[in-house]
């Protein structure tokens, strides 16, 4: 396991988490410790084992194709930080 400080910045960027240099250094040390704990896993022979993604072997349910939800835009947008005329406002992304 060789997680560098640059990896920390890269992962923070992928996760859209702003991070100061100080925070990145603390995160680096803690992540190294945590991956030290996780490393025990690597030595286990798992050849031929099917990955288990879920506790029950069930397949996705299908439902009837009918309308179940009605428009509740105003109710749901009441929780938004910024809206205008029923639209969510974000900084301009296209010049």
């Amino acid at each position, binding site marked *: 396991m060789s997680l560098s400080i640059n990896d920390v910045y890269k992962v923070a960027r992928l*996760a859209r988490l702003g991070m100061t240099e100080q925070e990145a250094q603390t995160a680096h040390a803690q992540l190294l410790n945590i991956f030290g704990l996780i490393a025990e896993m690597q030595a286990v022979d798992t050849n031929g*084992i099917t990955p288990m993604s879920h*506790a029950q072997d069930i397949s996705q*349910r299908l439902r009837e194709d009918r309308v179940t939800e009605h428009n509740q835009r105003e109710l749901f947008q009441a929780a938004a930080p910024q809206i205008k005329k029923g639209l969510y406002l974000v900084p301009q992304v296209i010049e």
Partner: protein
Amino acid sequence: MLNSSLLQLGAALRSKEISSVELTQLYLHRITALNSKLNAYITVNEEMSLAQARAADVQLAQSKTHALTGIPVAQKDIFCAMGWRTTCGSKMLSDFIAPYDAHVIEQFNRVGAVNLGKTNMDEFAMGSSNETSHFGNVKNPWNNNAVPGGSSGGSAAAVSAHLCAAATGTDTGGSIRQPAALCGISGLKPTYGVVSRYGMIAFASSLDQAGPMARSAEDLALLLNVMAGFDERDSTSLQRETEDYTRDLNKPLNGLRIGLPKEFFAAGLSADVAQAIEASIAEYKKLGATVIDISLPNSRLSIPVYYVLAPAEASSNLSRYDGVRYGYRTPEYTNLADMYEKSRAQGFGEEVKRRIMIGTYVLSHGYYDAYYLQAQKIRRLIAQDFVEAFKQCDVIMGPTTPTTAFNLAEKNDDPVQMYLSDIYTIAVNLAGLPGMSIPAGFSGNGLPVGLQIIGNYFDEARMLNVAHQYQQVTDWHTRTPQHIEV
């Protein structure tokens, strides 16, 4: 009244000995007096609770009642409840008013139970001490210098200190059982898929499961009857016949086979916890049970596997908090990416960010096979250990936690030490099995010890029977902390 079981409270309500409004006011009064000390609740809304209580009193007057009609229940602040502030213990959602009800909330509303308030919790249920909450730590009612456990620490403390009749919790790696053990109450995590996750704010979706927290197994059974049930809005909710979880409570335990995993009694288990657990096993033998030594050889890997899988799922689930549709938005930003990064950096606490970082890393290109896939393969090995074990025994027992409640701030700076406190509970979530914790004695310094009971898939009724019979011959579950008089 405060020491009454849910059945007794229900009888008192139906016989008009007390009204739901009076009972709700009794608890609200206690919360007003004690919450500044314990911090078990994040949000209390007297008006909304009393409106529900008044409606329950109308139902009671018309005799249109259910066992829980008019009973005040505390809801973990992870469940969306319409019109209630629902924070999940995070600054990210500190102003979020839920626009709909979680299935669990709907179920309680349907039977006329009263929502008494939203209980404190670790931020996004990530923590084992309730110290990651944006709203401050909860104190253990048994010792105010100790943690209540987490993540359902507020619910556990509220039940323990009689700040509610019962409560709900959620358990992803032990978050019902561990705080139940540390606060001396009973708590049950059902089989994955028994209780709908709809409207329960997601942490690690393949592990998250809601369950009841209360003072006795009998109370848990009544609560689970309300919480369980198929819900088409949760794609992993299981379509099963409705069960009455109280049906087996009074069965004798003659011939019960209890498996004791040697891994749960190895190095790391404190002497006072071991002693209490051994005494409770001896009690079970008196009740007619036999004890079988078993092994869960891969359980030692459950912490590494969990700390790959749970953060991976969390990093994906928490990507929805972008400061656009709901939740916190930073006041100052230069462009969209800057708004995302600042909103998330300021809105999430340290532990949540740490887990998002772990999850993003293990899912990133070049590491997926080595971490995520390897963890999923070992998850199957861990689940298979239980399948083998249940060929030899009916239930598995052991300690819920390696120690009694640790002190506030004791493990704060060392995430790895904090993670290790869930050593006995995590494997159950990985396998998707039901697990519970019941009070089983006290340590030398007066802190509660929890006995963990693990059952086979869908064996909740039997586990509740096993717990209830123990509670008929012991009184650990009736003990209450000092200094909770109002």
